């Protein structure tokens, strides 16, 4: 059974190599899809294993898939599939030399994220997270324009520095474990209650690690790379980064939290994450009010959602099932939105909101899914984000974070209003007089992934079994008994 | 005697009496005014003659006017007749299932107000609309005074049934001159002046279109349409004066049914209404019509009185 653990790592790499070998063939554009399918399938297999109470490990305990890891792996696979499938380029454009490299990097990226969630060692996970930066650096800069180069530079510098801070934190945590009898970086061992870790070291290490991973998960004030990178990367890459890379970093934060909570209690990280979450919401709200670029708009929306998730993490076990469901819902919807935004960008040729007008009349084939996904991302039911937000807010009050949650609601309202305004500007209304047009019903790309993503997020919250159980098990992994 | 039957008899008597009395009251008011102003006057029966004349004419209706021009006057008439049925004018024995609830009475009166306003609009002229608009504005602003004075009057009796209020006053006359009652009555009187388009809110004798309220709405009506409008308005005035007089001087009203009592009741209410009419007429001599946009001030004043009456009745009593 434990060989499944290797599929999401080896599979994508194999496909990447295959793609490079098939360079120039039309087949190589399917490398990303194949890689994400591999991840998704193994994720689902591991989920079923976790549900039956079996926790496979491999590589001398380096890889381990408990319920949380399996869940995250599934999310990676699902979002990857939606992004890559939805972003499938036409067969002709994939014959260029770049295409194979691009697909290979995507596969590498997926493998790195899979490793990050499967690793049972903080160190290995750190390396995997850093590897995502390396894999995506050229993806962000894929277009080779001045802007994409700028975005890539900022992304790599800010991302690496952030992750370096995380490494500093991990070093301190390791130092704490060196102080005990068993120097280790294993989650499993570190999150045991009787280790006697040094509280001061764990505080400092935890804080630094969280701060570092907050960079990758796009929490303010470490978020600065995110709008630039998301707006310049090719749409599927943006979708992947926004949909899962941020969440994988959040997963790291969750794991760190499960260590620190045991040693120093939840208060310290709770304060830190609440501040970070609120700041993220504030930043998103502030910069969405007069946003001009729809891909940046989506990027700030990711910051917002990560902020709310961070508040959920701060709240602790009561909100964790909601946060986990949130990760899934946000990932799929945001990937969908980025995929559609990529198509809009391609067809309209401008990323500017004010230049894209009356989309619903001119291009209903793009505008309708765009609007549905927008409704989902701002938290309308039946999409699962609604339940996650309600769950987090409700839980927030019950653990005494009413003030934080209240402030978050105010900011969410501003964000909602700004978001609605921008969306309406893009989609609603009629084209200015004199421009002839015929309604374009084409979706400009595969429709199925979009429909699948929307349908899945619309129904998943109502699937009490086995999703509910899985979420509870994943929460239990993090020390929550809820 | 059976309450229901006696109430039906009293109501019928009231209707017949007031249909007879209302034109007479108008005639008296106009004649008194004419006499005081030194004119000969048309005599107190002139309104009767007017009505007879109007009923015998072919009504002229405007092209494009709707059924409202026909139905509106009837509605006004019916609402005024209903007032005569429901108010305790001759006797205080109400119908069992429709006690003379003041809120109901006010609403019934409003049916007439609305009907008149719609008739004014239906003519399709500037003046009709103008009259209608002003009439409704005044009616809207009068409403609080009206209901609050009703409220104030209802407090001593513990009910808004006007028969019960009058009976309470009959039993304990000291209520009548209590400050609360006086305040409420003054407020109610102002409200009634406004509702019935008397001075100082409206000048019933005017023929200058720009200042008219009531008359402007009836400009397009003729023949029997006009007759119903006129009689309906007179009836309303008479009935409301009857109400005020019974609130101030409740004696003579029938509380236990008997033939003699009924006769006394009929005579006393006729006298009371006619006396009040004379007083009204004399009073109006000394009043000038206020500007339309000062009417709200007047109504605000009356509202304040009514409000004081209510709160005083809670805080004093």
């Amino acid at each position, binding site marked *: 059974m434990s060989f499944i653990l290797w599929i999401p790592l080896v599979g994508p790499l194999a496909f990447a190599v295959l793609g490079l070998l098939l360079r120039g063939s039309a087949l190589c554009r399917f490398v990303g899809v194949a890689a994400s399918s591999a991840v998704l399938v193994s994720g689902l297999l591991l989920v079923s294993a976790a549900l039956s109470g079996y926790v496979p490990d491999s590589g001398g305990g380096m890889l381990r898939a408990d319920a949380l890891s399996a869940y995250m792996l599934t999310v990676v696979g699902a979002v990857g599939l939606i992004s890559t499938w939805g972003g499938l380029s036409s067969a002709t454009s994939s014959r260029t030399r770049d295409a194979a490299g691009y697909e290979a990097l995507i596969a590498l990226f997926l493998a790195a994220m899979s490793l990050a969630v499967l690793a049972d060692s903080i160190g290995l996970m750190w390396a995997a997270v850093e590897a995502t930066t390396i894999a995506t650096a050229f993806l962000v800069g894929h277009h080779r324009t001045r802007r994409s180069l700028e975005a890539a530079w900022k992304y790599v510098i800010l991302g690496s520095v952030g992750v370096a801070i995380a490494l500093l934190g991990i070093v301190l945590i390791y130092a704490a474990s060196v102080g005990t009898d068993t120097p280790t970086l294993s989650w499993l061992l570190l999150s045991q209650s009787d280790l006697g870790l040094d509280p001061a070291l764990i505080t400092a290490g935890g804080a630094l690690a969280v*701060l570092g991973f907050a960079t990758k998960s796009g929490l303010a004030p470490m978020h600065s790379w995110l709008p630039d990178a998301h707006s310049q990367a090719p749409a599927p890459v943006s979708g992947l980064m926004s949909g899962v890379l941020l969440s994988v970093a959040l997963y790291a934060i969750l794991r760190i939290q499960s260590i620190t909570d045991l040693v120093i209690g939840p208060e310290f990280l709770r304060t830190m994450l609440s501040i970070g979450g609120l700041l993220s919401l504030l930043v998103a709200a502030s910069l969405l009010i007069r946003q001009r670029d729809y891909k940046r708009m989506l990027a700030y929306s990711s910051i917002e959602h990560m902020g709310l998730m961070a508040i959920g993490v701060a709240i602790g076990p009561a909100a964790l099932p909601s946060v986990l469901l949130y990760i899934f819902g946000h990932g799929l919807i945001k990937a969908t939105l980025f995929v559609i935004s990529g198509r809009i960008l391609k067809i309209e040729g401008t990323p500017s909101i004010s230049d894209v007008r009356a989309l619903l009349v001119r291009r209903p084939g793009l505008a309708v899914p765009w609007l549905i996904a927008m409704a989902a991302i701002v938290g309308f039911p039946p999409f699962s984000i609604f339940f996650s937000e309600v769950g987090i807010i409700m839980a927030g009050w019950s653990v005494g974070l009413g003030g934080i949650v209240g402030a978050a609601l105010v900011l969410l309202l501003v964000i909602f*209003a700004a978001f609605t305004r921008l969306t309406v500007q893009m989609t609603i209304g009629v084209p200015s007089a004199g421009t002839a047009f015929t309604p374009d019903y084409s979706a400009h790309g595969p429709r199925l992934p979009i429909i699948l993503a929307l349908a899945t997020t619309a129904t998943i919250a109502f699937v*009490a079994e086995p999703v509910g159980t899985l979420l509870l098990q994943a929460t239990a992994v993090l020390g929550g008994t809820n | 005697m059976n309450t229901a039957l006696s109430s039906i008899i009293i109501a019928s008597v009231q209707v017949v009496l007031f249909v007879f009395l209302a034109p007479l009251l108008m005639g008296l008011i106009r004649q008194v005014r004419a006499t005081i102003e030194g004119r000969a006057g048309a005599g107190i029966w002139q309104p009767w003659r007017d009505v007879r004349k109007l009923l015998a004419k072919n009504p002229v209706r405007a092209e494009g006017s709707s059924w409202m021009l026909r139905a509106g006057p009837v509605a006004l008439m019916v609402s005024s007749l209903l007032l005569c049925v429901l108010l305790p004018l001759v006797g205080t024995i109400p119908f069992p299932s*429709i006690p003379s609830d003041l809120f109901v009475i006010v609403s019934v009166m409003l049916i007439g107000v609305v009907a008149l306003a719609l008739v004014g609009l239906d003519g399709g002229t*500037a003046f009709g609309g103008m009259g209608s608009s002003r009439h409704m504005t005044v009616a809207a*602003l009068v409403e609080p005074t009206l209901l609050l004075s009703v409220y104030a009057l209802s407090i001593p009796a513990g009910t808004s049934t006007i028969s019960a209020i009058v009976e309470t006053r009959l039993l304990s006359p000291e209520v009548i001159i209590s400050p609360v009652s006086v305040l409420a009555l003054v407020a109610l009187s102002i409200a009634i002046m406004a509702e019935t388009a008397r001075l100082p809110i409206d000048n019933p004798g005017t023929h200058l279109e720009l200042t008219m309220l009531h008359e402007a709405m009836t400009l397009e009506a003729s023949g029997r349409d006009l007759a119903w409008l006129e009689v309906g308005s007179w009836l309303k005035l008479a009935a409301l004066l009857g109400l005020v007089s019974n609130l101030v001087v409740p004696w003579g009203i029938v509380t236990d049914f008997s033939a003699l009592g009924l006769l006394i009741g009929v005579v006393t209410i006729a006298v009371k209404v006619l006396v009040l009419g004379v007083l009204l007429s004399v009073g109006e001599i000394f009043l000038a019509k206020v500007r339309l946009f000062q009417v709200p001030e007047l109504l605000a004043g009356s509202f304040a009185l009514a*409000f004081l009456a209510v709160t005083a009745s*809670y805080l004093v009593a």
Partner: protein
Amino acid sequence: MTAIGAELLLQTEIGAGLLPQTAIGAELLLQTEIGAGLLPQTAIGAGLLLQLGLGALAVVSGLMAAPSLRSRAGGILCTLLAVTGLATGLGALLGATGGLLIPIALPMDPLVLAPDRLGGLFMLVVSGVGILVSLYSMSSTRGADASRTAWVAMPVFLVGMQLVPAATDSVSFLLAWEIMTLGSTVLLLADHASRATVASASIWYSAMSQLSFFFILAGFAVLAAASGGTSFTSLQAVEPGSWPANLAFVLLLLGFGGKAELVPLHVWVPRVLPEAPSHVSAAMSGAMVKIGVYGGLLVCVRLLPDGPPWWGIAIMLVGGVSALYGILQASVSSDLKVLLAYSTTENMGLVFLGLGASMLLRGFDATAAADAALVAALLLTISHAAFKSTLFLGAGAIIHATGERNLDRLGGLGARMPVTAAAFGIASLGAAAIPITSGFVAEWMLLQSLIHGGRLDGAVVSVAASVAMPLAVAVIALTAGLALLTFVKAYGIAFLARPRSAAAADAREVPRLMQLALALGALFVLALGLLPGPIAALVAHTVSSNPTTAVQSVGLGGVSLPGIGAVLDPIMLVVLSALVAIPVIVSIIVSARRHPHRTVDLPWGGGGSRARPRMQYTATSYAEPLVRVFDDVLKPSRDVQVTHVAESRYLVERVRVEQRVSDIFETRLYRPVLNLLQRYGIVVRHLANGSIHRYLSYSFVALLIVLIVVSL
């Protein structure tokens, strides 16, 4: 989307454990009425499930049906959906129990839909409006209004509205609530391609809806935190008057008040209701707004009864201000749908006034008056649903026939559209609270409860009540007076006199199905007004612990309030009027035979022979005196442009007068805040000015702060 895996809630299924945490779920469920019922009564559950199923079917038909069949199919399915809701609501109102469990992946209290009597009442009201609207829309929708999107959104909207009152826990409440909001938002967008104003209306609507939603969410969260559960049964455990209860009360009041169009959260109303297609406005104003009222009742009657007196006073204050402000704006408006929209604010204000009065009076143990006020508020809610949906449908018929909703360009429609005119007229009477319509009964009962509320057995109840009650009466009176003017204006200008534009002159009566919906609506208005007794008695069961002492039915359909000794029998009033009318009518018939009327071009015409329709009074001029009287509140802006004849300055060629009354809450409260936000939004861009050094500094500062904090 409505095809969520819902399952009938049977006792056995609870035991079998559909939920992740079976024990907790079953335990909580057992505490609720549904669980406690001895026999599983699944009729209600089946009704709810059928609603979901029909909703899903309607969505599918909206997606799949051919454009020519879409309105017909959608309309029929929506009507069926609403009829199911009506039946379910009626069942629940009469005391049937049963419910539906919505499975959920998150560990929460179970999501159960199981309407109680009050919920049943509101489901009934909402579905009743739904039937009217569905029938009407079957033939009224054309073009964009009949688009695929619109017909997908319609059932979603209806299902959402019909399920909110069924919720027995805060999460399913919020779920249905948001589905309702989503459906209505999409419907609002129907005409976006033809009018630019739709876009801004939709932004306002979404933002204000979200504001309401967040208030409610926060309110429920506060209560849930204080009580430890999200089901209404556990929320009831919160002590009223404790600070979480106070906070939650304020939040929930704001949230539900926003949906119920109360001041100052009403700003979306004058934008949204006019811009939405008329059948949607009817559904919003007739039904959706009632959900706000339901929320208010849920808080005040079910979750947090017996609150401190200031709760009642706060509700009365909000309600009173809304009533006055709403009707004032309505009375000066010349746009028919804006007028109706503001009038909704007024009516809801009165409903909340009644609700607040009832809370206040209950606090002073004036139970009879409190019950009467509450029943009055409910009656007003029901009657508002009837007359306001009819009015909006009537306005839709006018737009259908003329394409105009500006009263200043209408007129003379009475002769051209008799059925619409009659229905609109009856509904207007209802809105103006004239006997014998539904509005009258409700207002009468409200006034009765207020004047009897100041005293209890002859003793003054409290200073607060003795100030609040007269003020409330005054507010109701002024509101009623202005409503009278408003609806005389609306009806008189639109339907009477001569047409003020060519479009109005060419108007034709609307199709049969629309007439049917209008006639049904008018019939409801009359029926509610003629038979208040049985209805009030039924309604009293939903809110009063001792309904028979509060309200009784007397005579043929009369209502009596035994606790405060007031009786009203509208049928007797009709009989009496008929009796006194007989002589009048007889004399008319006699006179008409002898003296038939003549129709002339202009009998008098103000003395002029060339009086043209343009010279008629318009809606704007009709309201002019009122604008002057309430100058200080309305703050109208006037613009007079005089064009002189070229030859002489003393001769005037044309005068153009423009008067605009804007919403002071929008211009004085919302605009400044929004402008500030916009300015902030521009300034704050400097945070992300593109400099990597600045971005690194953010991280560096964060790192330094964290280092300093951990070493403290």
